């Protein structure tokens, strides 16, 4: 039942298989997208719990939080924000090319995205190791001399919990995108009717980006 359509760059992309329980391809893609949206909503709610913790403790320890927030490296944070936003752009471009069936460009764009993701993690690694060094650590591990206010260790508990959870999402996103990249590379089967996989992967990546856009001002700026 697989027919094919020709695409912009002349290659022939197979039409995706329609699972037997769906009425049409359109419905099938709609279902996939709706499922992904719901899943992303649950991810946001997961982080929302941490935002609540942040809000409560910030309210309880205003000075300690202001001081701790200033101890973070704003330059590194800003660079990371720019890196991540740019990677969201390339992820979106990957979808664009997938729609046109330009599978090679899909590979290129995802590779760029992954590269920036690695960059993000490397910078994060430097930030973390600095903290391990000076002792701005969560809870009972805190031994930083610079800030001796009550509540400062709590700031770093929230900092580490939220950035670690976000980092985990970065890694999951990278795995998802890698799958799409390998598909585009090996099978070259993305095209006008079949780009859901790239689209979902990139939606996930936008979420990772979005969460960071909340975390950055919360932790570094305010």
């Amino acid at each position: 039942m697989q027919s094919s359509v020709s695409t912009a760059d002349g290659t022939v992309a197979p039409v995706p298989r329609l699972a037997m329980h769906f009425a049409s391809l359109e419905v099938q893609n709609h279902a996939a997208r709706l499922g992904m949206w719901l899943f992303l909503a649950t991810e946001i709610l997961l982080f929302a719990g941490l935002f609540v913790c942040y809000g409560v403790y910030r309210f309880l320890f205003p000075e300690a939080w202001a001081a701790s927030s200033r101890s973070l490296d704003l330059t590194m944070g800003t660079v990371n924000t720019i890196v991540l936003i740019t990677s969201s752009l390339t992820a979106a471009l990957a979808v664009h090319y997938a729609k046109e069936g330009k599978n090679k460009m899909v590979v290129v764009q995802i590779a760029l995205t992954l590269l920036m993701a690695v960059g993000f993690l490397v910078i994060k690694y430097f930030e973390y190791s600095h903290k391990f060094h000076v002792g701005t650590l969560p809870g009972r591990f805190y031994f930083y001399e610079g800030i001796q206010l009550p509540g400062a260790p709590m700031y770093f508990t929230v900092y580490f919990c939220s950035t670690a959870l976000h980092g985990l999402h970065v890694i999951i996103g990278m795995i998802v995108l890698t799958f799409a990249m390998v598909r585009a590379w090996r099978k070259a089967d993305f095209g006008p009717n079949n780009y859901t996989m790239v689209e979902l992967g990139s939606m996930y990546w936008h979420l990772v980006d979005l969460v960071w856009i909340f975390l950055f001002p919360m932790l570094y700026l305010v």
Partner: protein
Amino acid sequence: MTPSSSIASPGAAPAHDEHHDHHPNYLVDGTTIKSWLLTVDHKRIGLMFLFWVLLFFLVGGIFALLIRVELLTPGPTIMDAMTYNRTFTLHGLVMIFLFMIPAIPAVFGNFMLPLMLGAKDVAFPRLNLLSLYIYLAGAMLALWGMLNGGLDTGWTFYAPYSTHTTTTVAPVLFGAFIIGFSSIVTGINFIVTTHTMRAPGITWFKMPLFVWAIYATSCIQVLATPVIGLLLVLVTVENLFGFGMFDPARGGDPVLFQHLFWFYSHPAVYIMVLPAFGVMSEVVAAFSRKNIFGYRAVAYSSLGIAFVGFFAWGHHMFVSGQSTFVGGLFGVLTMLVGVFTAIKVFNWVGTVYKGAVDFKTPFAYFCGFLFFTVFGGMTGIALGTVSLDVPWHDTYFVVAHFHFIMVGATIMAFLAALHYWFPKMFGRTYHEGWGLVSAALIILGFNATFIPQFLVGNNGMPRRYYEYPERFQALNVASTAGASLLAFGFVIIAMYLTYALLYGRASGKNPWRSKGYEWLTESPPPTHNFVGPQPTYPEEPHFYVDPKKAEVPDAV
């Protein structure tokens, strides 16, 4: 009355034509172990969930009986205090996370939802199978932790005790986290299925009420579960590494833990009870032989409960030091849940009124259900009143209340669903007399177990206590006696249903002459639910009232 045919998708048809002449039912279509373990058929997945859910119910039940035996005498009876703490924790955990939450959605939701929507499967069949294995993985991890060291926090994991206790917190909490993931996946699957897979003719307001209830439940699952997921991870991390998030000694706030915990766990109560309401709407229409009274009100009130359920969590913290104003506010919001539930209750009663009641086993459970819901709900309203809750808080009154409303209502619905849909699922009938006898035993036993607990709680006996003063003994013995009766009822059900499974008469397509959509196909249904193309359903669900319409012909 076969469903009139209609648009078949061009893509779907060929795959289907392979076995055109013989349409084996889903039970015999593939008999290898592998064909079960790797199936993507929602009906088989539903059955596998049924197996596990019943097994965990047995485990939780045995531990319930151990609790009751221990409480027979004021002092130590059969175990020491630490074992007792672990016993009630295991009982609560297993019952809540492994039985009540998945029971109706994962078993009957999985089985019936696609049938009721005229769909060949749920939207994501493989994800559906995955959710079963996630559930099992989480269950195994949690149980492994419970048996290797055990947990003594109670199923509520209250901080800061849970962040300090030396019993095995991490695997159990992480197991619960994994189970939550399964719950989210199931919820997403059902929501998407409801949105995208309705057969032509099924508009939103032609969906059976069970579908509405499952849909509302799924919304709660998707919105509430991530929050507890995060909370469980934080407590685990804190217990392992001492991060101090909820530890007052490090500036943390245990009340924040309670807020986050009840933000999930209060809606979780409706994850358990809304599907029960859905089952009952089906049963009451089928056995009163009347269209449901106030269909839209019943449908909307499910969404209403799901919505206000998110704003009532503070009633668990009336004595946590929150301000009187906040307490009062949460009290009022709690009452709102009562209003939506009352809408349902009145509509069910309105449905029975002047109906041609056919008093079969599922209807017997409906009667028990109505009693438990009303009684449990009324005590809930009472507990939602701050001034009354203060003395009752953390006494057996609360234990009795939540058993009445959650356990009572849900068990009644679970058993009603099992008896109502048994012929659909297995194509066989059970012995009606035994059904009614055991229903009577269970309803009686349940009352005998928990009414004494209301009394003993009202007299001041706290929950989760291992020893108690002499004067509470009579009521405790009564409660244990009731629990034995209850257990006896379950044994009888297990016996005649097993017998029916093996030797029961063939039920025919629609033994209840029900108008529910799921009865339009064969019993048991063929693998892809229908023979031929996707059906259309021109009528409304529960359409019993039009005298011009003929009765369903091939009833037994």
